[in-house]
């Protein structure tokens, strides 16, 4: 069982029905990685074959959701996934304790921390290979779910995350999150945060873009 959502199919331009599952299990994450690993391998081969510089490779190419599965035994960890057309299209892991807001207006108040989020390799845009996503909008659907989780927890929509460099534009310009800045404690990745007002604006579609 899961929540009915829609995602955009790029080729047809249509919105298609999908299911957003909450409470993914260890087994789910292993199934996801088995499904995605072959596509990661195929992309490595294609990138190498095309001589694409390493710095331009998708930055989450090396991830392995199966290795993140043990975290699920913790109460503070939740995993969500979007499935449609018989496959897992995107996954997100969140934490609901131990993370406080950093933006001054709400500093010190708890938030939902997005520990990991990634779409399936066939949903990546890789311009160097001329690859376009099969489904679009998966990241938006999952971040929307993180905001909803934050509200349900009483965190009023506050969400924080560390974006990989290739994703900074999405979180800053598309979602409208505050760009707090590089975080030396997290590999110098840029930390982004939704304040309560920004989360409201994102959900209502009036984000700062």
């Amino acid at each position, binding site marked *: 069982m899961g929540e009915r959502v829609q995602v955009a199919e790029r080729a047809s331009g249509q919105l298609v029905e999908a299911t957003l599952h909450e409470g993914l299990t260890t087994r789910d994450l292993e199934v996801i990685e088995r499904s995605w690993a072959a596509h990661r391998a195929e992309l490595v081969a294609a990138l190498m074959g095309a001589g694409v510089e390493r710095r331009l490779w998708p930055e989450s190419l*090396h991830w392995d959701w199966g290795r993140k599965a043990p975290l699920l035994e913790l109460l503070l960890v939740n995993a969500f996934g979007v499935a449609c057309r018989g496959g897992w299209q995107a996954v997100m892991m969140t934490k609901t304790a131990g993370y406080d807001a950093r933006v001054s207006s709400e500093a010190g108040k708890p938030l939902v921390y997005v520990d990991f989020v990634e779409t399936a390799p066939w949903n990546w845009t890789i311009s160097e290979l001329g690859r376009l996503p099969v489904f679009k909008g998966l990241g938006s659907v999952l971040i929307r779910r993180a905001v909803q989780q934050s509200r349900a927890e009483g965190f009023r929509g506050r969400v924080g995350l560390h974006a990989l460099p290739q994703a900074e534009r999405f*979180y800053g310009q598309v979602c409208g999150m505050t760009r707090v800045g590089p975080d030396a404690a997290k590999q110098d990745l840029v930390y982004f945060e939704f304040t309560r007002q920004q989360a409201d604006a994102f959900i209502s579609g009036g984000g700062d873009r």
Partner: protein
Amino acid sequence: MIGGESMDRATPEWLRRFADAEAECPSVSAGARQRASGEQPRGVALAGLIGLWRRSRGMSSAAFAAMAGIEVAELERLERGDEVGGGVLAQVAGVLGVSAEKLIWLCGQGTSSEAALGGVPEGLGARGSIPEPLNPRQAAALNEIIRNLAG
């Protein structure tokens, strides 16, 4: 109600708007540059390559180590990303049929002018002693990687 506290469903307009904007971005990935554990990626690349190669031949860790003429413990160190001697890497390269110099670079223990060779993903390795066979797509990917690493 949009923007309310309920688990409201996104409207088609919202979905299209964000889907189009998101598609202009190269990625939505958030989390960690390398592995969640913070380990260095060099072992990830080699573990992935060895794992794929073993699976393509249905070979256990012990069998691979024996074929390479190294101890199983050394193979495990390699797969964890620990430093190993160049001699061990050269023996592994011999089994894989790839350039020892490029393999050493892949492991982060040397330099290579071919920067595009790094980063075989960690998700490719088989962890069991009897690895699962590769599907055709994985086999093709392995062949392509080996071809790129060949002398």
